[in-house]
């Protein structure tokens, strides 16, 4: 009904290959952008304090969307399961911290990107087993990564500059006189930085997955044997997926610590977080960029808002709310798995298809 595709014909392959060939989609994206870049920064979210909106809802959501994108590239597009996500975020965070201490006057944003690169490297190493094993087995291998890294974050004090606390504190950084990180930085600044990262990374991801390399990932995912016989080298395909995915996860990890939490200990990177990110991907929809957004938003925002309202509106004790949301998360996950294993993205897709055919059923 919303779609009016008559007359939208393509006379060049370039147009055909564009990210949003349908005009109405372009509009949709524009609206989303306006909300994220203008409306929310100005008005915040209804019923929530402006401060809370930014630092408890929007910033984390944006960061976790990057994480989800990363994991989705690996799990959804390349079909390689990983339970080490949180730990890889840790790698991002700690390496960013180290980079900042080693090169004190390096621009914060560059540090973030570099930490992504480091993580990509680490991710590739831990991706090696994927050349021999699949499924659960691979999952266990990635668990090894998870626990080893957790251990490393505690036992290698060099990583946190031998702080007694064992935590990493974010140093003060600025750019063009704007405070980027540290206690004095404005939430809005940090929000915009994260948002820009998200937009750029989304754009890059969508490019890669529509191109040769993305295709090689999906080939491996859908039918690895056929892929090989068409000339895809599993080594390159799988490892590049691990690297690219880890790059995203690393960046999100760095952002999480330096532009959201402000300080972090190993708890922020433990196995349970890995599962939360996994949920984001699955609820959002495997192999879908839009899905990554849905997943992160649903899994993060709903509980936060519930807790907030629970406290402020109904005065429910936070502990109960905590448990309630945990249960809720589990239930949502189950329902998704039972009703539509391809997640919200698929539901969205179906709805869109219906709209495109409206008023006809087919």
């Amino acid at each position: 009904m919303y779609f009016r595709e008559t007359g939208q014909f393509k006379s060049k392959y370039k147009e055909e290959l564009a990210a949003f060939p349908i005009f109405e989609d372009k509009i949709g994206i524009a609206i989303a952008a306006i909300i994220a870049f203008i409306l929310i920064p100005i008005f915040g979210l209804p019923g929530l304090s402006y401060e809370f909106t930014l630092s408890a809802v929007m910033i984390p959501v944006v960061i976790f969307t990057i994480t989800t994108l990363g994991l989705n590239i690996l799990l959804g597009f390349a079909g390689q399961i990983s339970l080490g996500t949180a730990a890889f975020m840790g790698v991002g965070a700690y390496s960013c911290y180290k980079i900042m201490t080693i090169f004190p006057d390096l621009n914060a944003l560059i540090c973030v990107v570099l930490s992504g690169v480091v993580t990509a490297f680490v991710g590739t190493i831990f991706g090696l087993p994927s050349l021999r094993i699949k499924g659960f087995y691979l999952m266990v291998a990635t668990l090894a990564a998870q626990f080893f890294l957790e251990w490393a974050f505690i036992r290698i004090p060099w990583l946190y500059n031998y702080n007694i606390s064992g935590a990493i504190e974010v140093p003060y950084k600025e750019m063009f006189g704007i405070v980027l990180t540290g206690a004095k930085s404005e939430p809005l600044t940090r929000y915009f930085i994260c948002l820009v990262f998200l937009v750029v990374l989304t754009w890059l991801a969508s490019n890669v997955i529509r191109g040769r390399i993305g295709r090689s990932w999906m080939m491996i995912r859908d039918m690895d044997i056929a892929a090989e016989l068409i000339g895809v080298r599993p080594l390159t395909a799988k490892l590049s997926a691990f690297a690219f995915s880890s790059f995203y996860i690393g960046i999100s990890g760095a952002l999480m610590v330096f532009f959201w939490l402000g300080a972090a200990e190993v708890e922020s990177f433990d196995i349970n977080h890995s599962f939360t990110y996994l949920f984001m991907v699955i609820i959002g929809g495997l192999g879908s960029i839009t899905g990554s957004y849905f997943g992160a938003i649903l899994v993060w925002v709903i509980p936060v808002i519930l807790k907030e309202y629970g406290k402020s509106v109904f005065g429910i004790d936070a502990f109960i709310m905590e448990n309630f949301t945990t249960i809720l998360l589990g239930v949502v996950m189950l329902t998704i798995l039972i009703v539509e294993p391809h997640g919200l993205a698929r539901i969205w897709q179906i709805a869109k298809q219906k709209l495109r055919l409206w008023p006809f059923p087919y």
Partner: protein
Amino acid sequence: MVNETKKVMMEVKNINLRFGGVIAIKGVSFDIQEGEIRAIIGPNGAGKSSMLNVINGFYHPQEGEIWFNGEKRPSMEPYEVAKTGIARTFQNIALFKGMTTIENVMTGRQLQMNKNFFWQMLRYGPAIEEEVKHRKRCEEIIDFLEINNIRKTPVGSLPYGLQKRVELARALAMEPELLLLDEPMAGMNVEEKQDMSRFIVDVNEEFGTTIALIEHDMGVVMDLADRVVVLNYGELLADGTPKQIQADQAVIDAYLGVPH
């Protein structure tokens, strides 16, 4: 029919393939000439598919040599074999279920594409030009196989016959010198079989692609093939023109199931 002066493209010399104790192929040798349609037939479990798997490097025979374009081929992984210009379709369709027809065909161009990660990420300049170039080629193949109207359909939802055709399209997109077809007409109705045979001949003529195919339907084989290899219990039973094969007593026995 077979033109004796034709150049030999591939030659397999006394291949032995064992899985643990099981002997899949026993000392089989034959050749494939440039531009011909070569059929490999035989009862179930005769080692036909294994033979193809050996040719495109999925199995590594314990003994035997493979000569390709006049050179002895070292032991290769499937993806390396693909690089040498050998494409293949599967007995039980192996399409990429998550993709549409055109996307599946595009995968056939992987090897011809080479723009690096950087350009891929920007999807700009060289990368997009490359995409366009290969998309055009794929469209031509799609047009050739008359699957234009399912261009954007997810392959999972296609009827069996069409899926087979898409798989052929994908293989053609690789522009192979040698095309291996593993039972291209298995489970098709008469009409679909006719179409498929027509396409196979067209491919052989229009693109001059050499084709080696496994097929059960004798009628089809006899129409299509220039020469036929007959395998039985992993051994070479006969090798010759369809006429010779039809006349061959051993073959007849094997097919009538006379005990070995």
